Structures are given as C-alpha cells and as structure tokens.
C-alpha cells in the first residue's frame, strides 16, 4: 500500500501578521515556515502506520505545490520519515488551482491512500482534500480522526455532529484528517535529519490551470476594547456586569 500526504507550507502559527503597504498582500519577511499543523499530524500517523505495518505499507510520499522556498518543508517531512517527495513548481494561487495541480501529478503516480489536513492555517480554506478527490473521481472521507491499516484492512473513523462514525470505503480514497489522527507531531531523529538530505525530491512542472479566485486586499481586525477587570473577592459584580451590561447571561 502506498500513502501520499499533501503538504502545505505555511507561516509558523505564532506569526504576527503584517500587511504590505498596499494591503494587497501579507508581509512575509522574517516569517518562519512550517508544515501545516494538520498535514504534519497526517504525516505523523502515516509514519506510525508504516512502522507498525512494514509489510503492508511500502512507501510514504509527500507532495506540495510551491516554489523552491517550499523545499525545506519537504526535507523536514523526509527527516520525520517520509520516503520521497514531489514539489509542483508553482505558487499556490487558490484552492482549486492547488487541488487541480495535485490531481494532475497524482494521475500518473497512483496511491492507495491520500491524506490531506482538513485546513491550512493560512487561508483556512478547508477545501483542497475534497476537491482533489473530486478531480480524481475517488471517494473522500472528511473529519477523519482515526485511520488504521491492520491486516491490510483500512479502518476509518470520522467525526460527525455530536459523535463518531466508523466508515468503510474503497481504495484509492482521500482522507481529510483533523486533530486526533495523531496527538503530537513526530519529532525528527538525528538519523532522520541525516537521511533527509539524500531522499529523492522530484520537481514537477505545473499543468496549465487557471485559479478561480484571487485576494483583492487584506485588512487587520480592529483592536478590542480594554478588558474590564473585576476583583476576585467581588464575583457578584462580574455576574451583575454579565447580566445587566453585556446581557449575555
């Protein structure tokens, strides 16, 4: 069985967002780039599955859409334990564009299980995984919080409003994964970091695809009004404020 994890290269989640002077972009100078947190958890789960089931999972690949600046993110995935990687050499213009590019690349490189994080922490789109499945005309299972391949049988658990469902589907498929698929991201070992340098990273030229959306401008949220502090010995005052001033309880 071959597993592919689609990676998004995003600014560190603690980044303070600054806009460019014309507000048409986000100022990325000095930004630390990381593997999108959900993609990192997906990769961590895939590596765990391969370690536990070496006879079932033969290879873990990663793929991203991005310029050369995304290479360190792929190498980081190698250090964690991915076997090989692909970078589609184009800036990720919008979700439709990214999903279409991934689909074009995957059509000639079939995988059994494709994992996508449920959203990316920059655009908060929550769309690429399911779009990719539609382009490939394969099933997608969303909000996946558990995945197993024990005995070669794929076990999937997904979250639904107010509960969980165990579902069955046919291979190949796309699992759109959320928190719970893994708890903590895998930490790269020194051996992994050394091996990462020599693992194959293939650059693929993009297909001719037009994005369907574009950002016209950005703005920052308005500053909040100052917090009203209440003395810990005077909780009645807090209740009074919530009841009579904020009118929320």
């Amino acid at each position, binding site marked *: 069985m071959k597993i592919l994890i689609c990676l998004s290269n995003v600014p560190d*989640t603690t*980044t303070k*967002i600054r806009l460019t002077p014309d507000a048409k972009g*986000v100022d990325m100078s000095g930004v630390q780039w990381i593997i999108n*947190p*959900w993609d990192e958890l997906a990769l961590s789960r895939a590596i765990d599955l391969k370690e536990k089931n070496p006879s079932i999972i033969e290879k873990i690949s990663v793929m991203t859409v991005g310029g050369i600046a995304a290479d360190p993110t792929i190498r980081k995935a190698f250090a964690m334990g991915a076997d090989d990687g692909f970078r589609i050499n184009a800036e990720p213009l919008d*979700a*439709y564009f990214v999903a279409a590019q991934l689909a074009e690349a995957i059509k000639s490189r079939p995988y059994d299980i494709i994992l996508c994080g449920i*959203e990316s*922490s*920059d*655009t*908060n*789109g*929550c*769309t*690429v995984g399911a*779009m990719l*499945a*539609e*382009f490939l005309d394969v099933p*997608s299972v969303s*909000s996946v*919080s558990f995945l197993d391949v024990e005995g070669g049988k794929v076990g999937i658990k997904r*979250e*639904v*409003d*107010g509960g*969980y*469902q*165990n*579902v*069955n*589907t*046919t291979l190949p498929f796309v699992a759109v994964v*959320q*928190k719970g698929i893994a708890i903590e991201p895998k930490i790269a070992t020194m051996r992994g970091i050394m091996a990462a340098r020599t693992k194959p990273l293939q650059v693929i030229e993009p297909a001719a695809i037009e*994005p*369907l*959306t*574009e950002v*016209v*401008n*950005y703005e*920052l*949220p308005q500053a*909040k009004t100052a*917090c009203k*502090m*209440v*003395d*810990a010995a005077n*909780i*009645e005052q*807090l*209740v009074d*404020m*919530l009841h009579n001033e*904020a009118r*929320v309880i």
Partner: protein
Amino acid sequence: MSVLVYLENWDGKFKKLSYELVSYANGIAQQLNTSVVALSIGNVEGEELKKVSLYGASKIIAVNDPKFDQLVNQAYASVISQVAVNEQASVLVFAGNMTGKAVAPRVAVKLKAGMVTGAVALPQTTDPFVVKKKVYTGKAFASVLIKSSVKIITLAQNAYGLHEQPAEPVVEQFSPQLPEKDFATTVIETNMLTGKLLLTDAEIVVSGGRGMKGPEFWQPIEELAALLGGATACSRPVADEGWRPHHEHVGQTGKIIAPTVYFAFGISGAIQHLGGVSSSKIIVAVNKDKDAPIFEAANYGVVGDVATVLPALIKCLKDIKGQ
C-alpha cells in the same frame, strides 16, 4: 438564475444554523435581484421544510430517499450539483461546518465554481463578486474575488444572524439518479454522545485550561455549564493530556466556535487558542497570572485562582436563581 442553499437536517429537524443560511442566501438573492431555492437531502417532513420560507426561501426541493440517510460526500455532491444546474444557480450557499467542508469542495469542482469558505458578511459587491473571510485563523481578513460564473460560499457560524422575510413556499420532490460508485463509502457504526449540547450549537461555552490542575477538578466547569445551559470545552494541552476528550478542544487545530459568551478558566490564551474563540461575542477570563494574554482578548477578566473564583461564581448564580 437563483441562489441555492443546501440544508442539512438533524434527525429530520432544522436548527438555527439552517435559518441563518437561508437568511444569508436571501440577502445575496436580493443583491442579485433573484430568488432563493433551498435544497434538503434526507427525511424531513413537509411542515418542517416549510419553516425555511419564513427566511425567504420561495422554492424548497426535497430529496427524501433512505439512500441519503447517511452523509456520503460523493452522492451528496452529485445531487447538489444536479439541482444547481436544474435551477440555474449562480451562487450556492453552504454551512461552514463539517458537512459543508465535506461536500461543498466536491460541488465546486463539478461546477467549476470558485469558492470562498467561512464568509463573514454578504458579498461587498456582486459585480465583481467579492466576499470577505477570515484568514490566518482570525488574525486578518481577506476580500476575495470569485471569477467563475458559478460561485460557492460557506458561511462562518453566527456571522449573519436571522433575518425574516416570509415567502410563499413551493415544495418539490426530487429523485436523483446516481451511479453506484457515488455510494462507495458506507457507515458501519455510529456512536453518538447522547444528551450533550453540541459545542458548535451552544450560546454559552464554559472552558477549562491547564490552570484547572487536573481532570478531577472539572466538576465545577460541568456544573457552571449546566447552570447556564451551556456546553463544556477545553484548551489543547488539556485534550492532549487526555484530561478531556478531543471533541471538546477549541482553538486553531480544534473547534472554531462563535458563542455569545465564552468563559475561559485557567487558560493562558496562546494565540492558537484565541484563533478558535475570537469570534465569541463576549469573553470572560479567569486566570491567576495578570499578564496572561487571554486578558488582551477578554471583555471581562478576573485575576485569581480558579479553585476559588469558579465556586464563588456558581454560588452567586445559584443565589440569583434561588436554588
């Protein structure tokens, strides 16, 4: 032309979210000078269906077939796309919840429609078609131009509210013909947490962080939530430590919520946590560290020990309620 809104149901019923979506679709329909078509998939009775006309849906299409009792992303996407074509929909509206995330992107590919997810308001303009959404988990907003002729929007929760505009409803049944491959995914088992108010539905959310010291101290959180008719939540470290289940985790990588009031007890307010709760109307924070970042996001704050403040708050509320 029309604006098509997809309506999910919960055991055959709609909820506030459904009416908010119809209100929003109606807002767009007015901008475009057209009408709203609501599509319901699943077993919903006629009287329940007609309720959405109060918010402006003049036509309601019902797909009532047991094949659709469970969410199968491919099948749902096929049905919605067929109806969109039949109704000449130029804009499709979905909820920004788990179902919307699962289905709407597939529809977008079928219809070659540009998508904006988590919209926070009506389109700023409709020609060109520009919609505002949150990006960087609430740290910025982006105004996004959709260039395709068909557009898809998912609405952020509680971003628009309810707007009544009664319409005379016409209900039509639709029986789609789908290929067998659309039903490749099947549900083996469902485990529901019964009797719990859904975190994403709750108007009041009571949440605890590492400052609660351990799972054995959670009773007052539960008690306060019950007293206020709210739901319980927690921060990421609490879920990761296994003190509370993962479905209670609010924050960037957990659930994004937008309640009327959010109580944060013993939560320092890391930027990732704030990303999940910053849409709350009012945030109340209790933390022993006066410099905790949660106070920068909060509307009301108490510097103190949760172990004494929480019981005092519960007692005060009980006194008022005469319990």
